């Protein structure tokens, strides 16, 4: 019997009687990472990585029942061996490895293969069944090494500085924001929106080595912001506060920025193709490294990517899930937090 099934509540492991990233309330939710499309409020208990706990406490409430597990350690649930492996997506993000009677299944949640300087580096795990995302599952998505992208961002910031413009980077508060902070810190002060500052505090308390940033408050002078870099989440990119900034230049940091049409669509001044998801070669190398006999493809270019896998001899199947709407979900969180 298969180790996992796809139900209307989420990915279910019958043998262990728990769910992975369920979208409806269940007894035990094994959680890959803290993005809102992968973890919902209302589960009786959560199991996640040590560094995902502060995120859940911050976003879902302080009174949750959360058990944590470091990477590479095994826990038995109803006879199913559960362990977490780094997914490299955001801080604390994990691939969930399940083993039962010699059968191994890995649910990877969201992942990227390039080391980003702050999330534990992705580690391929051999398995029989692999569940993979396909957010950027088209051959047009090939990322440049992040050092090059960060240099582009630095050049853009210094150009804005010369033109007396305020550099505003648009990035998810969980993940992309910390990655930017870690890699851009040093030259100029970094100002962050409340939602990012709150998460950062949680990470620092949990022992993450994160450079210092300045929380944006109403008292902060707008002229001061111009000297540094401002980071805001996507939901605020078109907001009132942005309009109150004089001569702001916005730079959206997202894999979608690879395509000109998306850059124009977002009406950003600049787009930087910096993603926390695997690109096309990344997806393929990760999947091949698992040596899996069966690959379930979830959120993204599901049918295209699955069809391609089958063509190159990797048995694959499309699966409908509720993942893959980080942006909309982030918006919800921000409204709640506000």
């Amino acid at each position, binding site marked *: 019997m298969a180790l996992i099934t796809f139900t209307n509540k989420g990915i279910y492991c019958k043998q262990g009687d728990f769910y992975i990233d369920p979208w409806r309330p269940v007894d035990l939710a094994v959680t890959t990472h803290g993005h809102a499309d992968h973890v919902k409020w209302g589960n009786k208990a959560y199991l996640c990585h040590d560094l995902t706990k502060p995120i859940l406490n911050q976003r879902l409430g302080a009174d949750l029942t959360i058990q944590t597990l470091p990477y590479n350690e095994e826990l038995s649930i109803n006879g199913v061996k559960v362990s977490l492996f780094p997914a490299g997506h955001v801080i604390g993000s994990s691939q969930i490895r399940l083993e039962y009677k010699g059968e191994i299944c890995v649910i990877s949640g969201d992942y990227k293969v390039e080391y980003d300087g702050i999330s534990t580096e992705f580690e391929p795990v051999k398995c029989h069944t692999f569940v993979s995302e396909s957010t950027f599952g*088209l*051959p*047009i*998505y*090939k990322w440049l090494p992040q050092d090059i992208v960060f240099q582009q961002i630095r050049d*853009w910031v210094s150009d804005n500085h010369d033109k007396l413009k305020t550099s505003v980077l648009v990035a998810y508060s969980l993940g992309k924001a910390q990655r930017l902070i870690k890699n851009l810190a040093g030259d100029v002060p970094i100002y962050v929106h409340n939602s990012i500052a709150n998460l950062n505090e949680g990470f620092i308390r949990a022992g993450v080595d994160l450079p210092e940033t300045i929380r944006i408050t109403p008292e902060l002078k707008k002229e001061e912001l111009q000297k540094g870099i401002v980071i805001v989440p996507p939901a605020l990119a078109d907001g009132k506060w942005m309009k109150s900034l004089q001569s702001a230049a916005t730079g959206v940091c997202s894999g*979608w920025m*690879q*395509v*000109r*049409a*998306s*850059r*124009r*669509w977002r*009406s*950003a*001044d*600049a787009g930087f193709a910096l993603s926390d998801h695997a690109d096309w070669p990344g997806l393929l190398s990760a999947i091949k490294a698992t040596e899996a006999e069966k690959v379930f493809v979830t959120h993204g*270019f599901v*049918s*295209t990517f699955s*069809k*391609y896998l089958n*063509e190159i001899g990797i048995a694959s199947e499309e699966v409908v899930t509720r993942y893959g*709407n980080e942006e*909309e979900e982030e918006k919800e969180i921000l409204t709640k937090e506000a």
Partner: protein
Amino acid sequence: MIQQLEMSNKTNDKIAALVDYFSTADEQDKPFVIAMFTGKKPRRPVTTALIKEWAIELSAVPAWLFAESYHSVGDLSETIALVLPPPRYTSDRKLHEWINELAALNGKDDAAKKEYILKAWDSLDTQERFIFNKLISGNFRIGVSNKMLVNAISKQSDTESNKIMHSIMGKWKPEEITYQELIAGAHVNTDNSWPYPFCLAYALESEPLSLGEPAAWQAEWKWDGIRGQIVKRNGELFIWSRGEELVTDQFPELHFLQNDLPDGTVLDGEILSVKDGNVQAFSILQQRLNRKTINKSQLNDAPIGFFTYDLLEYQGRDLRGETMAERRRLLEVIMSGLGNKDVAILSPVITFSDWDELAEIRKGSRENNSEGIMLKKLDSLYHSGRKRGDWWKWKINPYTVDTVMIYAQKGSGRRANFFTDYTFAVRDGEHLITIAKAYSGLTDKEIKEVDSFVKKNAIEKFGPVRTVKPELVFEIAFEGIAESKRHKAGLALRFPRIARWRKDKKAAEINTLDDLRQLLASTL
């Protein structure tokens, strides 16, 4: 520079980037860049099919996957730039060198062409490849309009923009002219061409009763074409469109005016498709717009005419300070002197004695393919641009029908990653029957909402098309209805567009095919 242009959404920033470019760029490159942006393309050295074939081969992706990628990107040059493997070399050739090399490919065999193109791709980064591919195709439009380019050159060189427009729209070859000569208009006489700023009308929202005495007003049909100005000076003829673009070459039917009009004449009017003196639908005129070359069948199927309704210059004298009544009198003098009255036509004045009578006449607007009625005050002067009070357009209301969305397809260009093209249906008994396709009329925010609905409610997919749950109700506005054998519904709507999203209505409340059949019967 391209990057600078891409780095901003704002017109002023783009113009600044262009000014910056023309102040610092390689002298020999400049005329080529202007040629590129204005669509003066050299002969395409390699066919699109071959380019695509080589890109697919080099990137080792299956053809269907390349097609999927293209659907997502919405631009072939960009898709190719993105799917190719990373370059192994670099290159520092100048733009005009690339262009000359590409031109030299003409006449060589496919193997030589392939070798050159593959080598080029292998020495260019994604951005450069994109531009290179655009150079091959000649379709170089990246959010820079002629107008924007002209404004930038005008600013950079401190020259009047009308002169620059005339100069760059003239006949010249980038390899034979310098940037300075181009600005000076050495190849054309820019003094002859300059047009006047158009006088524009506001939409009349209330009843014309508020305009007072009918006798103070001149009524004309409001034509649905391209506003144009015809300038004849010193033996030369120029046709300007409302975007202040020179379109003389696009409309050879009007070239006889070069002989027939006296020097020092400027006509204001509407470029329309006219057959046997009758105005044709805008959809017919469309076949003739924005074309670089025109073939015989296009001339036959969509012949052009000019309905003139104002005179701005008479015997070399600026008439804009004269009253409408006086300008009309002189216009009639000029027009009576023309030999051929079937192509350049005096737009008729509608005679009426009171507003009710005019309202009755307006109901017949659609019969002569007009959009309603123009009202111009007889004692008004010719203003520059829009001024409230003297010119009004009194348009007829469009027809509307409530429909439900049944298919969605991703857009192209700016909207390539969103479902923006929709197909709508009305009810026919138990069935839904397709009645219109439309892709405009929603705000960006609404498009995102619909996009998210489509993603959650897709039932089936056929390539890029998704069948969706028939739930969202849209009010479709349209200009006309006609019988059609090609459409399953047996009728076709003219210019359908989304009037509004009826979130207050359910799919059960939409119109039926019978409703539309009745409408059709009533218009016949």
